[in-house]
């Protein structure tokens, strides 16, 4: 009997040791890699990220084989309701009790800034896709964050420069009154001035807002050739719709500074035609983007926005980095992410800079006329590919503390 008990004890002990060593060999601190998609599931931005971003994240996990370093990859998601306090609290809970390793998507700049701060304190990684403010890689930059898809500067450079070059040299801004809107207006105004244009005025509209007619009339009275819409989502849609209603688009041109393909889908080509905008991704660009987008659409009712494509791309790169580093330790993974170029359906030769900016090409596109469109979601003509180094703010003018000058 004694012998049998001893044997049991030894076997048990061995099993324990093996379990522990298996975990440490895998390099994952808690035996599972947990991805958190924090997004707007039901509010103003839920069509352009939201459930679609969760689908994109799940696709990334599936395409990577569901496992990294022999351990399962799990997905959790939450609705942060575009509120920084809810976002920060949920992030803290995820890191402290649910062992989440990385948070992605993060629309609404104020919420994204709050979460990247919390993540940095806990030494966890954030991959911001839908959040837009340039503060993310400047004043508020940190070593555990990557800003993946676009930022307000890239949008401003793409659209602002092109519009001024086409003779649109006087601007009036209708700006959503919060961090993102201000950032978008400031960045665009700087580009307009640098390109030889002039800003004749602006109005800060409360966010969110439905009736823009009053603000549009102020823009009309300013006599500016271009009305810059420094807003997003439902606000942009209503501004464009009402500008057409008030006959403003007959004499003045709208420049949408942040427009997603889902916005165009909702407006219809009849209303949106002719608008020029900048995007980080368009599904109908080459065979690779078409193939991925087709798979995405099979799982989700819409074509992917740039934010959703960015969630997929950033997670694929993150998983590869975890595999390369052989651990989920944040510093090692960040180093691996920065050492590898990004080559997938989203970006070609993309790279991550010291300030956390993922630099990749952007696209200046024009919305097609209804007659030019061959079917659903055939919305854009690509006018120009903007090289990554031109699209994003140069490190010389960066205010990020991580950038050595």
């Amino acid at each position, binding site marked *: 009997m004694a012998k049998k008990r001893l044997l049991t004890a030894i076997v048990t002990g061995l099993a324990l040791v093996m379990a522990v060593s298996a975990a440490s060999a895998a390099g994952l601190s808690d035996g599972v890699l947990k991805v958190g998609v924090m997004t707007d599931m039901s509010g103003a931005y839920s*069509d352009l990220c939201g459930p679609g971003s969760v689908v994109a994240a799940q696709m990334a996990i599936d395409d990577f084989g569901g496992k990294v370093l022999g351990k399962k990859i799990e997905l959790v998601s939450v609705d942060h309701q575009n509120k920084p306090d809810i976002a920060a609290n949920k992030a803290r809970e995820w890191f402290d009790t649910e062992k989440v390793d990385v948070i992605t998507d993060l629309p609404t700049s104020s919420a994204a800034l709050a979460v990247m701060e919390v993540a940095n304190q806990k030494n966890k990684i954030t991959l911001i896709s839908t959040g837009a403010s340039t503060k993310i890689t400047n004043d508020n930059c940190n070593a555990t964050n990557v800003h993946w898809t676009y930022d307000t500067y890239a949008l401003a450079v793409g659209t602002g420069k092109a519009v001024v070059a086409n003779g649109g040299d006087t601007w009036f801004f209708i700006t959503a009154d919060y961090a993102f809107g201000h950032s978008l207006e400031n960045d665009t105004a700087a580009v307009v001035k640098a390109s030889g244009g002039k800003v004749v005025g602006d109005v800060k509209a409360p966010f969110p807002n439905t009736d823009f007619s009053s603000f549009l009339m102020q823009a009309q009275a300013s006599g500016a050739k271009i009305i810059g819409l420094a807003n997003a989502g439902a606000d942009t849609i209503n501004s464009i719709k009402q500008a057409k209603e008030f006959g403003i688009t007959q004499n003045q041109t709208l420049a949408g500074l942040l427009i997603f393909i889902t*916005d165009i889908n909702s407006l219809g080509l009849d209303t949106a035609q002719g608008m020029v905008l900048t995007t980080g991704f368009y599904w109908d660009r080459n065979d690779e983007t078409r193939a991925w987008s087709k798979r995405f659409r099979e799982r989700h009712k819409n074509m992917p926005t740039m934010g959703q494509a960015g969630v997929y791309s950033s997670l694929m790169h993150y998983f590869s980095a975890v595999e390369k580093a052989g651990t989920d330790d944040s510093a090692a993974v960040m180093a691996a992410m920065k050492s590898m170029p990004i080559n997938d359906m989203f970006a070609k030769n993309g790279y991550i800079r010291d300030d956390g900016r993922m630099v990749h090409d952007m696209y200046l596109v024009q919305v097609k006329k209804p007659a030019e469109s061959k079917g659903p979601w055939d919305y854009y003509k690509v006018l120009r590919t903007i090289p990554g180094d031109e699209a994003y703010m140069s490190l010389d003018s960066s205010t990020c503390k991580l950038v050595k000058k």
Partner: protein
Amino acid sequence: MMIQVFGVPIQALLGQLLIGLINGSFYAILSLGLAIIFGLLNIINFTHGAQYMLGAFAAWMSLTYLGVNYWVGLILAPLIVGAFGILMERLMLRRLYHLDHLYGLLLTFGLALVLEGVFRQLYGVSGLSYTIPDIFQGGVNLGFMFLPYYRAWVIVASLTVCFATWFVIERTKLGAYLRAATENPELLQAFGVNVPLMITLTFGYGVALAGFAGVLAAPIYQVTPVMGSNLIIVVFAVVVIGGMGSILGSIVTGIALGLIEGMTKVFYPEASGVVVFVIMALVLLLRPAGLFGREK
């Protein structure tokens, strides 16, 4: 030399006043429905915003799936939404009349969330486009502003409906019954008037008004599941300022607040989202029953 008021050209000011009047007529028609319902049923109807949304969706659906034009939609949608209201009153609200206001508020608020959630699940938040009917395409240049024909129609339609409703309630025999029912339902019933039926129909009418406003709004704003919740809080502030249950008060206050909000958008746009609530706080401090309300 242009005449200026505080640095704003008078033309621009006139234009903004007109815009304020348009928004004010939306507030008026929505707050009127709420005031009728509160006056007669003592129910604080938080589903009103969702019912406004239902009106817009009913118009969009009947156009898209059935090919029904705007004018038919303008009649049909309020009827559908009104019928929904009647069902809601018969099946649910009726059980709450003898309880505190709070229960009705909770029920209607919950229903609003459910309705919004269902439509969000089905249609997403970006919304659907309802094109302006052909007859109202374009607009007229008034010299100080370009007035789209459709917006002019919105003012005419909503003011007509508002004042017709006011007239029926304050100046006709049917209206006298309604008012009597709010004061003393038992006594009126003793005279042989079917009070429960009257209450049901009145609730249906109040709800139909929300549906009507929804159809009016559909071509201007995107038809979205959240369009009502964006508006309902302002409309409640309007009702509080006007005096809960006051018919004329809700109409006049609705229009006045539209105008005040319009002015704020010119002089200090950042505050245009809160100005209504600042006024509400002031009114509650100085005249708790509202501008047109009576202390009970």
